[in-house]
């Protein structure tokens, strides 16, 4: 009986048992519960898309007891929500060293009826910072080749040692489950606990990439939000944005990056072409209105 397969099996089960002490079930939507992770004392992090109500949220702790949880805030962009719980909890361990494609990974969740649950596969792709289709930025793109079942989202993704790779979500990619990286979670949790939300910079313009006759690339202003930050700074429809905050603006992604490098409320230098003449305009970055 003593074989390597059985040893691996026991190792996986031991990791699930250990890590499961940090994982709770989150009841904030009809039908299926989701999972959540004690990220810090009294703080549970889960997947934002599984939070369908703002009140009467409860969590099932590893000891099986139920407890009320208060929504501290959420960020749809990174699919993270932060809950406050009157229970210290056993916080997830230190994040794993850089995951690599091929590493074995477990996604560990919890449900009220069956307790801790696990699904297993590999990390299938890892790359640098990645913008989600919801507009948030993940510090790394960690794609998982494992099946996320209903209720798995919000659970903890770990390697076979039980070291966290991040939090599982099925909502950020159509083709695979992702692990939201630990550094992103730390950043979002900090911001939500400090301000109740993640604020994103906003100019209030509609932009379209254009190529100039001299093959330079810029972004032409197609619309200006009345009373928005760009309008207040005097930006006009037809201006061509060449750079923002010193960063060349060849694509709207460049603008997003420039806005992330500067906080809301800061002033940023925009280099524009107006009627063929170069101008510099200082724009005070506003906060993107929240979708209601």
């Amino acid at each position, binding site marked *: *009986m003593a*074989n*390597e*397969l*059985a040893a*691996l*099996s*026991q190792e*996986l*089960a*031991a*990791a*699930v*048992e250990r890590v*499961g002490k940090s994982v709770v079930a989150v009841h904030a939507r009809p039908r299926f519960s989701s999972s959540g992770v004690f990220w810090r004392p009294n703080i549970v992090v889960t997947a934002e898309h599984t939070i369908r109500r703002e009140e009467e949220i409860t969590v099932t702790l590893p000891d099986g007891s139920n407890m009320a949880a208060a929504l501290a805030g959420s960020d749809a962009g990174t699919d993270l929500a932060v809950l406050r719980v009157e229970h210290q909890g056993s916080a997830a361990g230190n994040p794993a060293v850089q995951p690599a494609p091929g590493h074995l990974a*477990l996604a*560990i969740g919890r*449900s009220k*009826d*069956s*307790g*801790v*649950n*696990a*699904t*297993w596969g590999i990390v299938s792709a890892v790359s640098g910072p990645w913008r989600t289709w919801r507009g948030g930025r993940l510090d790394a793109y960690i794609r998982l080749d*494992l*099946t996320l*079942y*209903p209720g798995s989202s919000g659970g903890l993704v770990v390697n076979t040692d039980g070291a966290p790779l991040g939090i599982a979500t099925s909502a950020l990619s159509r083709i695979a489950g992702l692990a939201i990286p630990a550094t992103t979670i730390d950043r979002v949790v900090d911001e939500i606990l400090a301000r109740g939300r993640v604020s994103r910079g906003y100019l209030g313009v509609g932009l379209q990439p254009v190529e100039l006759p001299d093959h330079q690339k810029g972004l032409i202003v197609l619309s200006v939000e009345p009373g928005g930050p760009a309008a207040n700074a005097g930006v006009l429809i037809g201006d061509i944005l060449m750079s923002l905050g010193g960063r060349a603006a060849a694509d709207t992604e460049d603008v997003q990056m420039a806005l992330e490098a500067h906080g809301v409320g800061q002033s940023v230098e925009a280099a524009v072409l107006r009627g063929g003449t170069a101008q510099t305009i200082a724009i005070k970055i506003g906060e993107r209105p929240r979708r209601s």
Partner: protein
Amino acid sequence: MRGLGEIAERLRRSTVEVRLKGNRGGGSGVVWSNAGLVLTNAHVARAGQAEVELWDGRLLAARVVSRDARRDLALLRIAAADLEPAATGDSSALRPGELVMAIGSPLGFAGALSRGVVHSIGPIEGMGPQPWIRAGVRLAPGNSGGPLANAGGQVIGINTAIVNGLGVAIPSNAAADFVERGPRPALGVTLEPVPLGLLLVQIEAAGAAAAASLKAGDILLMSLAELHAALDSGEEVVKLRFLRGLEPDSRRLPVRETHVRLGRRRAEAA
């Protein structure tokens, strides 16, 4: 080291295909003893007779010895020499995350293997109070009744259903209990939960409910959980309250009572 292939091959020899005469498709089964006992799902062995195909291609007639519809288990008997019964494990020691593999005839592909880990162990809403093994293994029709084994190749479950994409298996300890002590008491009815209780849709002619004069259309005044508890109470006779002939304008509820004789199970094996 015993590799996955070797363990799977050993398990494959203890796995059979179960078919009903004249039916296409079927399920799988596990050779439980070299005396010719084969375990499968009750929903696979729907008739009294079945046909079993062994791993080496031998085709055998099988008789259904006993069934437990509540646990979806059926025991078949075949007459064959050189059977290789499966090794069984202790399903109560199983933990989420353990490696498991399923063998069966999904969509008719005999001996197909899929692997994964135990997802969770516990009751499933609408499937009674008993625990089930949920596993992240890919199952398909045809896996039903086949083995779910651990990394040592020991059978720890009987694959039974697919719920939300997860394989659902009956724990091997419950299967062993069924083989040793026979089916758990049953009413012998098809029922449907209604607001007042449990509506009896169909009554099996030879069942305990029929013997107690219960009829189709009667409504038992209890929940499914209460019925399961009564059946598993160990009592030989249970008293059931029910409604018969309920009219929309009746002033009094026509409540009646009956005593259902469930019979005695064999004593627990020492």
